[in-house]
C-alpha cells in the first residue's frame, strides 16, 4: 500500500545532523516572532519600575515615599515589608539576597522599592521622587580593596590539589610568579529582562518570564508569595538572548510582578529600562589571579599554584559554582604534575555576579594560558611549543589526571591543534609577522594559537536531569515540550530534529511549544551548554516510549514480529506493508494506544565530592582551537583582528549550521569580553558603564576581517550522547583567548619579545598602549 508515495518521499526534511535553519527564522525576519513584551496585554495591565539605592553600602535611616505614592498614575508602592512570603530570592538558599532591600543597602543601584502604575512611563517617573536618608558605611567595590579589608567571602571557597605543589616549585629549575586581572562582562542580551504576571483564582499566578530557568522562577515566586510551587506557573516561548544572564536574574522581576499582581488582582508587567537592567543584574565575575609556576628548560610544567580571587558582589548567587568552575578550567588542556588551586569568592559592594557563558571557566582558562605565555617568553620560545609540551597525554598514560582527579579519557586536543596549525599556516605566518614587526615602526602584529578543553555537565550533579512531554495527536501531528528554554541557541530546532528523526516525519509535523512548568516539572536551567544533551535525550526517551507502544500495537494487529515494524520516512513499515504515518496513528488511537509520554534523562557516570575536591564532575570534554592574528597601533593602542581560523569539536553535530553559528557568535562575544567590554565603577561604587552608550560590545566591523570557522567533522562523542553530539554553547567562547594573546605578542614586539607583556583583560586600547609604554621602558 502507498508505495508510490513512499518512493517519492524517501527522506524526511530535517533528520538529526542536518543543517536545518532556526525554527523561528522566518518569524524573526518578518518581525512576527513574539517576545513577552510583544504579547497582547490583558486588559488593565499595570507596570512596574524600580526605586534603587544611590549608595554602595549604607543603612537606610528613613524612607519617604509619599511623593512616589501621590505621583500621577501610581497604584501601589511596594517595599520589602510588603513581600507576603520570604523577602529572599537567593538561588542557593543562603538567604542573602532580598527582593527589595530592607534596613541596609549593599550596592549602588540595589532595588529598595517598586512602583506599580497605570503606565510604564508613570512608574518610571514616580520612582525618581523618593526621599531616602542613608547613613553611609565603608564600601569595597574592587577585588583589591576587599582583599585589603578583611576579604569577606560570600560562600565557601574550594581547593583543588594533587601532588605536592610547594615541593615541586622548590625543586623546579625555573619559576615565575605573577598576577593577572581579568575583567567581568555584561551579558547584553538584546532583549532585556521582562516578566508579565497574570493573577488567577486562589493562590494561582501565571508568570511569563524571560528566563533560562522557569522552574527556579516558579520556586522563587512561590517562596516570595508564600505559596506552594503548584500555585505558580512559569512560561517562556523564547528569549532575546540569555547567555547565563537569565539563569537566576529573572527572579527579582518575576517576584515583584507576581506579588503586585496578586495584591492588586491585575496583570502586572515589569520591563526594566536597559540602564536599570544593567545596574541591577549580575555579570560575569572579575578575577584577580595570583599564580606561581615551576618548569624546566623545555618548558615542561612541574608545578602550578594559583589563587583565583573573584568579585562576587554583595551576595552569593551562583558564585560558589562559578568560582569552582574557574578552578576546574585553570588547567585548560595542560597536565599539571603538581598543583594547588584555590578560590576566593569575595564579597564586594557591587551587584551580585552570576552565570555567564562559560560560568567561570573562561576566567580559569585565561589564567592558565597566562602561565603558558610567561613560560614561553621566559624561555624565548613560541608559546605553541610550550602548549604542545604540556598537553594532557594519551589515555592510559601517566599524564591524564586533572587537578580534580578525573582522568581525561577523550583527549583530541593534539589532533585539533595539529590540524589547525597546518591549515592556518601558523608557523610561516608567525615568522612573517616577526619579520614585519622588525621593519614596522608604528604598526605591530601578533599571532597566537590557543586550545580549549571544556568540561561538560553541571557540577551540581542533580542538575543533570531533564524531562520532555510528547503528544502525538490523532491526525499524526506532534506536540513537543521539554524543560529547556530557547534563547537563540537553536535548542528547540535541534530537539525537534531529534523527534522528527525518531518518528521519521518532516520537521513541520512537530509543533514546538513554549516551555512551561505546568508540562515538565523540576527542570534545570538551560545552561552549562547542556540544553541539547539533556533535553534531546529526554525527548528521545519520550519518543521511544510512544514508539514501543506503537510497535506492540502494530505487531499485534498485523500479526508480525515487533522486529518487523519500522518507522521509515512518513510511514510505518509493518512486515511488507507501508502505512502512512498519519493513518497509522489514527488506527492506533482507535485501538486505544496511549499516544503521549513523559520522557526523562539523567546523565550517567558523573559524581563530585566537593569537600575532598575529587571526583568525575564531567561526562565528557569538548575541544577546539583558534589562531588569531591582530595588528596594533603602538602610538594609540588601537587594534584590529585581521584573521581568525577556528577548528572546533562538537562531536557529531546535530545541526552543523546552528553549531557553526554558536561557534562564531561565542568567539565574537569572547573577543568582546577580552577587548572592548569594560565595566567601570566610580569612587562612589556606581557602575558607570550601564548601557550600550558606555559599554561597548563588538560590532560587525570588529569581527575578524577574515574568519574561517570549521567544525571537526571527524569527531564523535566517545560517550553515547544524543546522536554522539557534543555541547556547543560555551566551549567556543574561550577560543577568543587567542585574540588576547595575539595582542600580547604584538605588544611584546616593542621589547623584542624578551618580556611577557602581562596584558590584563579587557585589553582596551588604553591597556594595550600602557603595556607598550611599560615594555618600552624595560
Amino acid at each position, binding site marked *: 500500500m502507498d508505495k508510490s508515495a513512499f518512493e517519492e518521499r524517501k527522506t524526511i526534511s530535517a533528520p538529526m545532523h542536518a543543517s536545518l535553519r532556526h525554527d523561528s527564522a522566518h518569524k524573526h525576519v518578518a518581525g512576527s516572532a513574539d517576545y513577552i513584551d510583544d504579547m497582547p496585554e490583558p486588559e488593565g495591565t499595570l507596570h512596574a519600575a524600580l526605586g534603587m539605592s544611590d549608595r554602595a553600602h549604607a543603612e537606610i535611616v528613613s524612607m519617604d515615599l509619599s511623593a512616589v505614592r501621590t505621583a500621577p498614575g501610581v497604584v501601589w508602592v511596594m517595599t520589602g515589608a510588603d513581600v507576603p512570603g520570604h523577602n529572599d530570592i537567593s538561588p542557593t538558599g543562603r538567604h542573602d539576597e532580598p527582593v527589595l532591600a530592607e534596613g541596609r543597602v549593599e550596592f549602588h543601584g540595589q532595588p529598595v522599592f517598586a512602583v506599580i502604575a497605570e503606565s510604564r512611563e508613570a512608574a518610571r517617573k514616580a520612582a525618581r521622587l523618593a526621599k531616602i536618608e542613608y547613613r553611609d558605611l565603608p564600601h569595597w567595590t574592587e577585588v583589591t580593596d576587599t582583599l585589603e579589608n578583611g576579604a569577606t567571602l560570600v560562600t565557601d571557597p574550594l581547593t583543588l590539589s594533587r601532588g605536592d605543589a610547594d615541593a615541586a616549585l622548590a625543586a623546579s629549575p625555573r619559576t615565575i610568579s605573577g598576577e593577572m586581572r581579568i575583567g567581568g562582562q555584561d551579558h547584553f542580551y*538584546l532583549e532585556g529582562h521582562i516578566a508579565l504576571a497574570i493573577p488567577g483564582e486562589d493562590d494561582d499566578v501565571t508568570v511569563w518570564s524571560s528566563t533560562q530557568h522557569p522552574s527556579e522562577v516558579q520556586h522563587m515566586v512561590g517562596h516570595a508569595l508564600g505559596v506552594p510551587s503548584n500555585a505558580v506557573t512559569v512560561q517562556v516561548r523564547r528569549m532575546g538572548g540569555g547567555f547565563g544572564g537569565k539563569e537566576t536574574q529573572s527572579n527579582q522581576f518575576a517576584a515583584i510582578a507576581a506579588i503586585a499582581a496578586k495584591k492588586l488582582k491585575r496583570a502586572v508587567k515589569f520591563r526594566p529600562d536597559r540602564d536599570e537592567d544593567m545596574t541591577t543584574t549580575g555579570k560575569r565575575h572579575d578575577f584577580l589571579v595570583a599564580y606561581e609556576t615551576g618548569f624546566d628548560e623545555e618548558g615542561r610544567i612541574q608545578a602550578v599554584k594559583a589563587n583565583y580571587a573573584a568579585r562576587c558582589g554583595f551576595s552569593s548567587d551562583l558564585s560558589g559554582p562559578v568560582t569552582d568552575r574557574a578552578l576546574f578550567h585553570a588547567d585548560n588542556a595542560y597536565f599539571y604534575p603538581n598543583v594547588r588551586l584555590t578560590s576566593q569568592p569575595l564579597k564586594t559592594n557591587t551587584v551580585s555576579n552570576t552565570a555567564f557563558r562559560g560560568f567561570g571557566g573562561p576566567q580559569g582558562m585565561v589564567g592558565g594560558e597566562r602561565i603558558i605565555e610567561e613560560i614561553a617568553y621566559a624561555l624565548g620560545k613560541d608559546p605553541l611549543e610550550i602548549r604542545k609540551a604540556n598537553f594532557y597525554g594519551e589515555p592510559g598514560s601517566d599524564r591524564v589526571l586533572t587537578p580534580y582527579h578525573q582522568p581525561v579519557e577523550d583527549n583530541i586536543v593534539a589532533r585539533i591543534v595539529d590540524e589547525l596549525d597546518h591549515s592556518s599556516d601558523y608557523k610561516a605566518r608567525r615568522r612573517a609577522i616577526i619579520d614585519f614587526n622588525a621593519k614596522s615602526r608604528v604598526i605591530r602584529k601578533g599571532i597566537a594559537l590557543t586550545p580549549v578543553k571544556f568540561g561538560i555537565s553541571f557540577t551540581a550533579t542533580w542538575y543533570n536531569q531533564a524531562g520532555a512531554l510528547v503528544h502525538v495527536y490523532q491526525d499524526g501531528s506532534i506536540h513537543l515540550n521539554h524543560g529547556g528554554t530557547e534563547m*537563540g541557541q537553536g535548542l528547540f530546532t535541534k530537539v525537534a530534529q531529534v523527534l522528527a528523526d525518531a518518528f521519521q516525519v518532516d520537521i513541520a509535523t512537530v509543533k514546538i511549544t513554549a516551555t512551561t512548568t505546568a508540562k515538565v516539572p523540576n527542570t534545570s536551567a538551560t545552561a552549562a551548554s547542556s540544553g541539547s544533551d539533556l533535553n534531546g535525550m529526554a525527548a528521545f526517551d519520550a519518543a521511544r516510549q510512544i514508539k514501543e507502544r506503537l510497535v506492540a500495537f502494530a505487531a499485534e494487529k498485523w500479526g508480525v514480529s515487533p522486529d518487523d515494524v519500522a518507522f521509515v520516512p512518513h510511514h510505518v513499515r509493518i512486515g511488507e506493508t507501508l502505512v502512512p504515518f498519519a493513518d497509522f496513528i489514527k488506527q492506533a488511537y482507535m485501538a486505544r494506544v496511549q499516544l503521549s509520554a513523559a520522557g526523562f534523562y539523567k546523565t550517567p557516570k558523573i559524581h563530585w565530592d566537593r569537600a575532598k575536591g575529587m571526583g568525575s564532575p564531567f561526562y565528557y570534554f569538548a575541544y577546539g582551537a583558534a589562531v588569531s592574528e591582530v595588528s596594533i597601533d603602538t602610538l594609540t593602542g588601537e587594534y584590529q583582528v585581521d584573521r581568525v581560523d577556528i577548528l572546533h569539536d562538537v562531536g557529531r553535530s546535530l545541526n552543523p549550521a546552528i553549531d557553526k553559528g554558536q561557534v562564531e557568535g561565542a568567539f565574537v562575544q569572547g573577543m568582546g569580553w577580552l577587548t572592548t567590554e569594560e565595566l567601570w565603577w566610580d569612587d562612589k561604587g556606581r557602575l558607570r558603564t550601564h548601557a550600550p*552608550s558606555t559599554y561597548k560590545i563588538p560590532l560587525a566591523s570588529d569581527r575578524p576581517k577574515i574568519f574561517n570557522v570549521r567544525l571537526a567533522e571527524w569527531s564523535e562523542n566517545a560517550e553515547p550522547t544524543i546522536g554522539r553530539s557534543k555541547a556547543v554553547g560555551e566551549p567556543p567562547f574561550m577560543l577568543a583567548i587567542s585574540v588576547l594573546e595575539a595582542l600580547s605578542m604584538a605588544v611584546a614586539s616593542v621589547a623584542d619579545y624578551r618580556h611577557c607583556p602581562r596584558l590584563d583583560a579587557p585589553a582596551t586600547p*588604553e591597556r594595550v598602549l600602557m603595556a607598550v609604554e611599560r615594555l618600552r621602558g624595560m
Partner: protein
Amino acid sequence: MQQTGRIRLILNDEDIVLDDVPATGTLLDWLRLRRRLTGTKEGCAEGDCGACTVLVGRLLDGDLVYESVNACIRLLGSLNATHVVTVEHLAAPDGALHPVQQALVDHHGSQCGFCTPGFVMSLYGLWLASDRPGRPEIEKALQGNLCRCTGYEPIVAAAEAVAATRPSAVFDPIERTRADVKEKLAALAPRQTIRMGEVGNRVVIPADVGALAEVLAAEPKATLVAGCTDVGLWVTKQMRALDPVVFINHLQELQAIERSDGGLTIGAGVTYTQAFAALCEMVPALRPLIDRIGGAQVRNMGTIGGNIANGSPIGDTPPPLIALGATLALRATAGRRELPLEDYFIEYGRQDRRPGEFVESLFVPAPAADDRFAVYKLSKRRDEDISALCGAFRIALDHAGTVTYARLCFGGMAGTPKRATHVEAALRGKPWTEATIVAAAMAFEQDYTPLSDWRATAAYRMLAARNLLMRFYLETTGETAQLHRFEEVA
C-alpha cells in the same frame, strides 16, 4: 494653547493624521503601544543598539530619500510629512519574504532574533540606496546595530548575497509607491506653524525660520529639537519634561548647503550624513571621521547644528571645524550675528548663545591647497563610540619645511573643545622634524588637564594626544601610522 494644524504622515501604507501628540512621545512607543506594530523592538532606548531601526522617507531637495533611523529616540512630533516604514511592511501581500529578509533566513542570520528586525531595516535601507555594496559599505551600514548572538558573519554574508538583486527586479514595497508617496509628502509640508497640546506638553512645528525666531523670542526656554540624538536621551533616560518642544528638523532653510570659492556654508539642520558628503569633497581628510560618528541611524538624524549647539566637550565635529577656522551664524528675531566657532564654547556647560538665538549655519573656509590636515578620533571601540579624545591638526610649511601656520584643536581634553595653543606656538617657526614634534608634544601639559572617566584615564588622554601629534607628523612623511578597517592606505 490654540491648536493650529495637525501632524500628517504615512505609516507603511496608511495615511495618518494626529492632532494629539505628546511633546516627548517617541516614535517607538507610538508604533508598539498605539499601533501594535511590535516587530520594531526596544533594546536600549538610547540610539545605540539599532533594534528599533525603521526607515523614514522624506523629501530632500525634491528627492524622496529613505533613511534608517532609531525609533526609540525619534520623537513622533518630528515626523510630519514623512513616510515611516517598519519591518511589517516588507513582506509581499501573500506573505512572501522580501529578498533582504529571505537572505537573512538563508544564511542563518538570526539566532535569538531580537536584533533581527533592526538588521533587516538597516540592510533594507542600504539595499535601496546602494548598488552592490561591498563589505566596507555593509559594515558601515551596520555600525548602529548590535547583535549579541551571531558574531555578524552570517548577517554580512546575507547582505553580500542580496546585493545582486536590485529593487527594480522585485515587488518592492517602497519602489512600488515611490511616485505616489512623493506627491503626498510634498502636499503635507506645513504651510503654517503647527501648534498642539496644553502648557506642560506643547508641540510647535514652525512653518519657517522666521516663525522659529518668533517662537523662540516668545519662549526662550523652549527646547529645540533637530535630530533628537541628544534630546531623545533626555526623554528616555532622564524622563525630563520638556515644554514647549520646537521641532526644526523639517526646516528647508536650515538644510541648505552652499558651496563658494571661499568655502562651504552648511545649515544647522543638515544631518551628519549630508554634511560630510559636502565637507569631504572640500576636505577629503575628514572622510575617516564620519565613519566613526555614531551609527548610520544617528548620522541620518543627528545634525551639525545640534553637535555644536549642545556644547559638549566630546562632540566630534567641533575639533576639526575649529582647526579649519569655521565661523558660526546665530540668529534671533533681532537679526544674525557671526562668531568664530571656538569662541562659542565658553566653558563646560556654557556657550555664547543668547536667549532667543538659534544656530542657523556654519561657514567652513576652504583650507589652502598645500595645508596639511588630519583628524583622529580615539575611542574604546572603534565604531559607534564616543571619543575618549579627538584631535584635529592643521599646519602649513614654507619651502624650507618650516612651520608657518599651526592650528590644533582637541575634544575630550578639557571642558570644551579647545585649541592646543602652547603646542601650536612650539611648532610655529620650527622645522617640521621629529625633534620639533617631540619637543612640542611636551607643551600639551600646558594646554590641557584632562579628566579620568570610564572612557579613558587622564594619563592615557595625555599620552595619546602627544602620540597623535607624532602620528600626524609620521603620516606627513609617508609612514604608515594608523590602522584602517575600511580603506587600505594607498
